């Protein structure tokens, strides 16, 4: 083949461009830390990466939701514990009141404490977390117990508040205020009714009524404990779900990294290789471009 000067310089230029192009690609990969910079670099990997990113984003969101749910349920748990201990105190007072030997003043004092506890329980029923009334179902802007100037009235509904913690998985995180305070187990009257009748029964020294109230108080205590157990079970489940999601999230991150991250060591070595090629091409170029027969003829 006949070789001309133009051919030499053009081939040299093309090879230099190729070497530089390779260096550019590797440099981009190194500086971005990513193997895939545009869809055409690896279409299948890009599609997988997009899917993984969507999944990661969803799992992170569910993790946030679960964290918030756990916090919320822990707060509810505290309130329920509080209610339970108040009822225990009411029970002690009822037992005292059932003892017919108390003086009228003592009975008055006991009845007063029961009234105070009832007030306290109403406050508990209207507990807010943030701006939400936690026992009002989904009517979170309404307190469960409302004083209309004459009577206490009930508000709220028995709808669950559910948090989404998975693909089509949503768990109830709320405690039903209606079944907790208003309509406990069958045959047991509501918490506030029980306390009101207890208070007046102690005042009037009606021991049979006090005995009845005692039964209702036990029923209410059982009811609160049942709600606590239920809440605890759900909290456990939520905690487990969050742990699962932690694992899932790190697995997904790992997969994404496997797909799209550049192998730094390999990229580095490849880069050094192309750099050497480039340098070699440059030095050879400097040698072949210059001399021709022109330089040797006088």
């Amino acid at each position, binding site marked *: *083949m*006949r*070789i*001309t*000067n*133009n*051919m030499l310089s*053009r*081939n040299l230029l*093309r090879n230099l461009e190729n070497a530089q192009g390779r260096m550019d690609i590797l440099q981009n990969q190194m500086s971005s830390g*990513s193997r*895939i910079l*545009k*869809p*055409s*670099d*690896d*279409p*299948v990997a*890009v*599609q997988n*990466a*997009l*899917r993984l*990113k*969507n999944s990661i*984003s*969803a799992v*992170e*969101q*569910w993790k*946030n*939701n679960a964290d*918030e749910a756990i916090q919320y349920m822990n707060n509810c748990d505290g309130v329920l514990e509080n209610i339970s201990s108040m009822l225990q105190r009411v029970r002690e007072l009822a037992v005292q009141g059932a003892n017919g030997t108390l003086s009228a003043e003592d009975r008055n004092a006991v009845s007063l404490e029961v009234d105070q506890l009832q007030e306290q329980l109403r406050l508990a029923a209207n507990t807010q977390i*943030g*701006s*939400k009334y936690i026992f*009002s*179902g*989904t*009517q*979170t*802007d309404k307190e469960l117990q409302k004083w209309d100037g004459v009577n206490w009235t009930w508000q709220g*509904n028995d*709808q669950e*508040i*559910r*948090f*989404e913690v998975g*693909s*089509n998985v*949503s768990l109830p995180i709320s405690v039903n205020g209606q079944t907790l305070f208003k309509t406990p187990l069958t045959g047991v009257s509501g918490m506030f009714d029980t306390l009101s009748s207890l208070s007046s029964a102690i005042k009037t020294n009606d021991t049979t009524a006090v005995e009845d109230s005692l039964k209702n108080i036990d029923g209410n205590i059982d009811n609160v404990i049942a709600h606590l157990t239920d809440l605890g079970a759900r909290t456990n489940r939520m905690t487990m779900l969050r742990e699962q999601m932690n694992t899932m999230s790190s697995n997904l991150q790992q997969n994404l990294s496997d797909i*799209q991250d550049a192998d730094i060591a390999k990229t580095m070595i490849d880069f050094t290789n192309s750099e050497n090629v480039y340098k070699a091409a440059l030095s050879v170029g400097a040698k072949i471009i210059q001399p*021709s*027969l*022109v330089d040797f*003829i006088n």
Partner: protein
Amino acid sequence: MPSTFFGLEISRRALQTQQLAVDITGHNIANASTVGYSRQIADIQAAVPWPMTENGHSISLGTGAVLDNIVRARDAFVDRQYRWETSQQQYWAVKQETLQNIEGLVNEPSDNSISSDLSNFWNAWSDLAKNPDNMGARAVVRERALTLTDSFHYMAQQVDDLQKDQDASVRVKIRQINDDAKQIRELNIQIKNAEIRGDSPNDLRDKRDGLVDDLANLVGVRVTETRDSAFSDRQVNNYSIIIGNDSASPPQVLVDNCLVNLLQEPEAAGPDGKPFAAVCWAEGSKAGAALDLGEKKGSLQANIEMRDSYLPTFRGQFDSLAQGIARAVNILHNTGQGLTVSSGIDFFTLSDGSSPTAASPVTAATITLNSLIKENSGMIVTGLNTDDSGSPLTEVVVGDGRVAQALASLASGWTALQEQIQEHVFDPLGADDLNPVPAASFGDYYGANIAQLGVDGQQANRMKEGQDALVTQISNQRESISGVSLDEEMTNLVKFQKSYTAAARMVTMMDDMLDTIVNGMGITR
């Protein structure tokens, strides 16, 4: 016997011939780096011998050398291969360039793309579902929705602009083809005139070949050069160029000798109703007919394909995505109420604020957040607007996040939602079929489209790379035949110079000989 001065005549011819050869070498050296230049070779032939009769028979006595012709080192077959391959190379080059533009546009994979805008949008709904009465969470949903619609608008706008760029390229290229055709015709006339005179106009031919090379970048070309039968005693050629599909009938002749058929670019509605330039013949037997471009040849065709099919399809995918999102979100959004009792409103509307319908769905360019929501994020629907028995609510239930939750769950698909709709948990009026896009989820649909773009880009890259290699190889082959090698020219220069010196020496010697005859012969002392 030849004349006494015959030797001088041979020397004169030799001097003249070598001098011309040196000039030709000089011309080559001067054009060593001229694009499209073919090196020229002095075709030195022995002159017609002089027959003399000696000893009763005829002897041909050599009469020296003459410059018979100046030949151009060129291979028509390599030219044809070169044009064939550059046509394809340029086709893929434009495809590659446009696809790279689109890839830059979608900006995937990154954290700044429609994909991430979508994720953020669904996550905002999930946050709102937890706190439906929280104005902050509502504002976030509104802002995410605005970001998403802005991204869709940007994408539609950019694809439109790309389409316009392609159209501008088409127009420029048609003019370029016409210009080239006119210049080739001029050269045809000049070359033919020269050929009739017996000349071989090498540099004009180089110029014409260069123009045809340019033309091959734009469209597929086929050159036919046949001998003109009107001139039997000398080489006079007819030169014609067919462009586009070379098997079209009647043939699509751009230039035929001194005739030229130009193209025109009438504005016509393209496949998606936009006024784009059509490519038609303006003159000749095919006047008015569209130019048949054939198979994947030339950058013009790539521009037209991108403009008329690829980009509209690409934008169509974003239109479907926008349409699907708007449809699914609206169906669910209409089943609920926000911070005020309402019978449900659209979340997304057309750009004029009207409700999207099956007949006039939203597109990527027109998807818009409902202006009521834009002004008051309390209008964002979070809960159902019916109670458990299905009768409408009279009072807002602010803590109900079921609709927001359903919207958030669209992120991972709609199979479960579909069941809930069939069980009448959500009771969308008149529409119980979600299935907004043909995929398992919006993310999957989008991902598949991006992967398709990647596959197309990869194909263009590979084809371009392959064509580059072929063109390089053929260019080298062409350069090997036609290129100027300085070493060779210097060698020739030395050769011709020495021949010239030798011929001059011959003159001196002849002078000596004549001196002997004129001054030395017949003189006695």
